[in-house]
């Protein structure tokens, strides 16, 4: 069973975030996700049917909401584990930051759950189920592994929301995504400075393109492939109707 590359050597593999995000492009797909994204060119042909019994995120704004809900579930679950057993020797500042991140991400998760539930009405089968997670060999007692994983999740969240903005049709949902993505970026900045104090890493050249000053923006298929490659998400789902 191919878990993720991070389960072989979590710290090293997370040290290069770009490499992590590019795993999807290299065709590495985690066991937890079935990734078979279409390129969204099928327009109004209707949604591609999911494989038997596998949840598909859906199309349009609902698909984006479910996609965000999946990412927020992962972040919230990760920080829940972090705050329930802080690594030893944690500083007051780190404890404060990680506790805040836990609070924010749990709020985001419950927001999407409630918003999607309200949006689909009686069609509750369209709501992404509660996902199960497995962090494999990730050592929550290891500061470096916890902070590096947090950095990856936050940077990935920023790239995901930035890339999803153009897929949103409703201005209200676009504004909501904007309200959340800047908080994810604030998180990423803080975590990066905890990892490398006094550096320019808060908006480092590894993540912000130097000549344009632009952060990353990635399509759902690339994000899901990268997240899938971690093996963190056990519950299978597809994003066949998102680019």
């Amino acid at each position, binding site marked *: 069973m191919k878990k993720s590359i991070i389960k072989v050597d979590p710290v090293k593999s997370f040290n290069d975030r770009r490499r992590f995000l590019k795993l999807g492009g290299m065709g590495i797909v985690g066991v937890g996700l079935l990734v078979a994204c279409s390129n969204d060119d099928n327009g109004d042909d209707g949604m591609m049917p999911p494989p038997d019994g596998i949840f598909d995120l859906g199309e349009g704004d609902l698909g984006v909401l479910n996609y965000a809900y999946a990412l927020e579930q992962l972040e919230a679950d990760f920080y829940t584990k972090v705050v329930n057993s802080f690594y030893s020797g944690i500083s007051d500042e780190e404890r404060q930051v990680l506790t*805040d991140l836990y609070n924010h991400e749990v709020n985001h998760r419950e927001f999407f759950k409630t918003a999607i539930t309200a949006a689909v009405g009686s069609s509750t089968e369209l709501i992404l189920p509660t996902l199960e997670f497995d962090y494999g060999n990730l050592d929550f007692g290891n500061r470096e592994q916890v902070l590096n994983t947090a950095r990856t999740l936050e940077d990935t969240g*920023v790239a995901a929301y930035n890339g999803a903005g153009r897929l949103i049709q409703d201005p209200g949902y676009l504004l909501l995504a904007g*309200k959340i993505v800047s908080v994810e970026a604030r998180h990423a900045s803080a975590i990066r400075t905890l990892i490398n104090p006094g550096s320019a890493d808060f*908006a480092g050249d590894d993540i912000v393109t130097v000549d344009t000053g632009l952060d990353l923006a990635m399509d759902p298929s690339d994000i899901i492939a990268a997240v899938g490659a971690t093996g963190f998400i056990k519950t299978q789902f597809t994003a066949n109707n998102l680019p």
Partner: protein
Amino acid sequence: MSIIKFLDEFTTETLLEGRSSRREIFGTLGSLSKKAAMAAIPFGLATMPKKAFAQQMTEADPVGALQLALTLEYLEDEFYDLALQSGVLPSGRPETVYMQISKHEQAHVDFLIAGLEGAGVTPVSKPTFDFTVGGMFDPFNDNGIGADTAYAQLLALAQAFEDTGVRAYKGQAGNLLGSPFLTAALQIHSVEARHASEIRRLRGLKGWITNNERGTGMPEATQAVYNGEENITQGGLDVTSLGSGSPFGMEAATEAYDEALTGDEAVAIASLFIVAEE
């Protein structure tokens, strides 16, 4: 109290006796906030510059959005350039942080100009900025206020500019819906948020905004940057009521969502630092 009087107090040399530590400076600015509360001249109520671009910037369309963005980027770019040239910034983390941010703001200016020109639109010209606001601030220590006070002002202004930038870009997203510029604007927006978090943390604050608190040491005049951040209704839902425990308290529920500024609100904040042309 007039704004001139307020700003005069904000920069009065006698506020600092001798050489203070950074913590003491922030304390001084904190007590200043109380005086500022009486002054009640927030950033957002500054006189609008009599310039045509102020109208063009607040058009609710993609061009208006980008022109507003460019104006804010001009402001930030010049501010960080002057800050780095001032000799006020301590070496080490502050200088490193300002250099990185300066690099991005300049790239944003170039990027937005190229984008507007590529779309066949003439970019707004760079306004004349006055970060001393008529000589009442002295963030670059040009008038001898002293490096410690100047540095405290540099940090406070940077926080206000970055937090404003985040809110302003967010407010323009809707105007860019369906436009090819939306994604790039979002990519700038999140960089501004990374900057804001770092500047706030450099000042000893959290990287995120709690309730509508401008934070210790920020003058009352900057409160317009934070008004509305106490919102807890997102998409029609009260996000303090989605569950129980700390994630649903007021602090977490307001920190977890940044709020937008309208174009008019953003222009009003920026205008304090723009020299009106006759």
